[in-house]
């Protein structure tokens, strides 16, 4: 759990993309982006069709994840490198799945698709076919996933980090303007949560800020590194980006992503909600 083991540069990818044990995987919110052009050799995971349960509100279970990766030709001992658009939101979300299901070596391409494009690096629309494998997923590691009961108990006790935009945190907006489809019944935030938008952890080109800048960012916003932390957003993808920063780059232990996030919390009966720009009381 450090920048050296969790993050790779574009130069690293150029150098290693043809290695037999390296699998590049693109994960986007805009699922048509891959078809228009992807890094040579990269396969695609559709964050919704591939990674969500088709019926229940949950993501794919151990068996489904295992079948997915077997079908796409990923082996347990492969080095998986994830990247995508939207500053790697959905790639970070997929990274969290790979960790949850026990994949050994998984990394994120720093800056994702955006930095790759801004550097005018090559993209191709060539189809990629990998031979099926027999991937074995481990039981989910719930040390990195938080559920609602635990979040309620964390109010005023653990670090709660709300990574949505300030307007969503304050309750002035229910969702980012370009993603109106999944909304909660009520607006606001979980009381005592610190507002630290995911975007503060990244540079304009989508690469992550330095470890020192990141530590200062979270400490100044009230995160106590001596305590356990739960991050949330609206559906769990932006908070996977922050989970990656805290758990993988800064090596903090006991950091969980609450993927139920605001769409769950803001629709629950009887839970406390805070409005406005201040964290609020426990």
């Amino acid at each position, binding site marked *: 759990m450090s920048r050296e083991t969790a993050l790779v540069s574009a130069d690293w990818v150029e150098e290693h993309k043809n290695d037999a044990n390296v699998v590049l995987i693109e994960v986007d919110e805009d699922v048509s982006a891959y078809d228009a052009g992807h890094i040579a050799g990269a396969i695609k995971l559709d964050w919704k069709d591939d990674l969500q349960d088709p019926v229940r509100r949950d993501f794919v279970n151990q068996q489904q994840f295992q079948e997915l990766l077997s079908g796409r030709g990923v082996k347990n001992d492969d080095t998986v490198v994830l990247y995508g658009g939207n500053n790697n939101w959905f790639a970070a979300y997929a990274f969290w799945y790979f960790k949850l299901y026990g994949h050994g070596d998984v990394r994120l391409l720093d800056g994702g698709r955006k930095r790759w494009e801004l550097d005018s690096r090559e993209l191709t629309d060539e189809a990629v076919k990998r031979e099926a494998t027999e991937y074995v997923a481990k039981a989910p590691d719930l040390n990195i996933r938080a559920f609602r009961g635990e979040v309620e108990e964390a109010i005023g006790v653990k670090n709660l980090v709300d990574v949505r935009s300030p307007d969503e945190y304050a309750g002035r907006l229910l969702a980012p*303007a370009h993603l109106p489809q999944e909304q909660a019944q009520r607006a606001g935030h979980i009381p005592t949560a610190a507002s630290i938008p995911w975007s503060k952890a990244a540079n*304009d080109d989508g690469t992550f800020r330095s470890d020192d800048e990141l530590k200062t960012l979270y400490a100044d916003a009230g995160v106590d590194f001596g305590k356990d932390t739960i991050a949330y957003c609206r559906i769990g993808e932006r908070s996977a980006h922050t989970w990656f920063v805290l758990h993988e780059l800064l090596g903090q232990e006991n950091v969980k992503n609450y993927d139920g996030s605001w769409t769950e919390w803001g629709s629950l009966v009887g839970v406390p909600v805070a409005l406005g720009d201040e964290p609020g009381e426990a």
Partner: protein
Amino acid sequence: MCGAKKGGLDLKGVDVDKEAVIQGQVLRGDEPVGGAYVRLLDATGEFTAEVPTSATGHFRFFAKPGEWTLRTLAPKADPVDRQVVAQYGAVAEVAVTV
């Protein structure tokens, strides 16, 4: 982007009375720049949204009324900031040259 009109994106289907639209085109000289990234920053400089430009260099945001900054990142160019004011009932049209 088929159907884009000279001077701006087609506003068919957009209720400009209810939306504070900011849109425009990224150009290098007279040539449109597709695949540039335009970031919408609020009055405090906080990131609000980001879109890649279309093949014709066009972009569009549905903002709230107020002052915004458009920060454009394009290959082989320095970032360019443009200030813009959005309001209901008017389309803020911005040409960004990188």
